[in-house]
């Protein structure tokens, strides 16, 4: 079945098997290998993508369901230079084997887009659907906080620059 959708801000038209999962389609056909298969049944969140602004498990969605929708993967965030979250994870050592990291970053992105300054509990709730077997989560929570500070700084510099322009 032919589907048309937006992947990382690019228009895609593709003829995809009706029974294929979004996870397999994104990895095998679109080569978005940041999307990982962990459990394949919605428990671990390694396959998390952003669909219309919400984090979802791509293992629980059919590729054909993407028709007409807007999808972001970690590759897309890198392409547009939206890397503050990723940098924060690296800086805080919130990565060990790295398998779960793309999923965590996508869930963090949705959290910070909706709540730029979350407290510990809000972070824990937002990342509840992502499992990490290496880091023990403490560093991940620190990384989310760092990302929140970085993004706030970025926004104020952008605002300052705008202010300067207006002043000129």
């Amino acid at each position, binding site marked *: 079945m032919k589907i048309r959708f937006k992947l990382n801000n690019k228009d895609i038209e593709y003829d995809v098997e*009706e029974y294929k999962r979004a996870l397999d389609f994104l990895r095998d056909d679109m080569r978005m290998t940041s999307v990982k298969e962990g459990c394949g049944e*919605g428990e671990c969140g390694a396959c998390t993508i952003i669909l219309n602004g919400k984090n979802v498990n791509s293992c629980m969605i059919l590729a054909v369901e993407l028709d007409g929708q807007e999808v972001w993967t970690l590759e897309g965030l890198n392409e547009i230079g939206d890397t503050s979250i990723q940098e924060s994870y690296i800086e805080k050592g919130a990565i060990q084997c790295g398998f779960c990291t793309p999923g965590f970053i996508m*869930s963090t992105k949705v959290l910070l887009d909706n709540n730029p300054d979350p407290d510990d509990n809000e972070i824990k709730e937002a990342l509840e*659907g992502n499992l990490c077997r290496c880091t023990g989560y403490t560093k991940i929570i620190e990384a989310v906080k760092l990302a929140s500070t970085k993004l706030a700084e970025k926004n104020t510099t952008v605002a300052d620059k705008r202010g300067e322009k207006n002043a000129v």
Partner: protein
Amino acid sequence: MQFKYSKPKTIEELSMLKSNYNAKLLAGGTDLMVKLRAKSCKPEIIIDTKGLGKNEIKFENEKVIIPLNTTYSDLLKNKKFKEKFPMLVDIIKKIGSPQIRNRATPIGNICNASPAGDFLLATYLYHGYAYIKPTNKKIKISQLIDGPGKIKLKPEEFIYSIELKERIGYEYYYEKVGKRNAMNISIISLGIVLKKKQNIIEEIKIAYGSVGPTIIRFEDLEKSVIGKEITRDLFDWLGEQYTKRINPITDVRATAEYRKKMVKNLLIKAFYNLNKTFQEG
């Protein structure tokens, strides 16, 4: 897994497909995709209900109408819903994870007819009704459920929306026993709504999940305590009645013995939670 996919745009088209094929309806897909992967269901065709669109959540006459394709996240984002149905908000927050709640739908939970269905349990306490298309019937949700995974619908029928009644002036208690917070399937769950005057029960509804083939409620036991004073003794007695009647099974999540003990213990816990003034006094 191999199947055809269809996303009909009208009620008639959806209904025709559903009655003509070995079909499964797909809304959020958070249960269906697991079943397809495990090959525990092998439909010829998957019918995506999202082609019918998503109507708004409506509030009228102390009731909420939740339409097809409404997700748990949609409900959690709805200010009026949060204000009017705090117990349901508590229940929904314990369902799955953000990723699941962004896809999964209450109507899907009802149609799965799982005895562990968290939202299904709530519909037993909130006078839940389902509107069925294309036959335009309105059926009490508890009467629709016909055992684990079984729902009494004709091949052409599907649930188009559900209705829940507000419980104004009620207190509530909800507990879901499981091994972790997120992604938990309950070992046993208990939901109670209670209306009292001073310390006398005016109305009480008690529903257990995961201890039988479906959600369990005994209206005769509920009625038998109306007009009685809320005491630890009364709840002990009630707990014994439920323990006598409920026969849970052993499965991967817990043993029958554990569940049976918990039937009573949860009710005692409910007593202390519902009756905080008693505790403080």
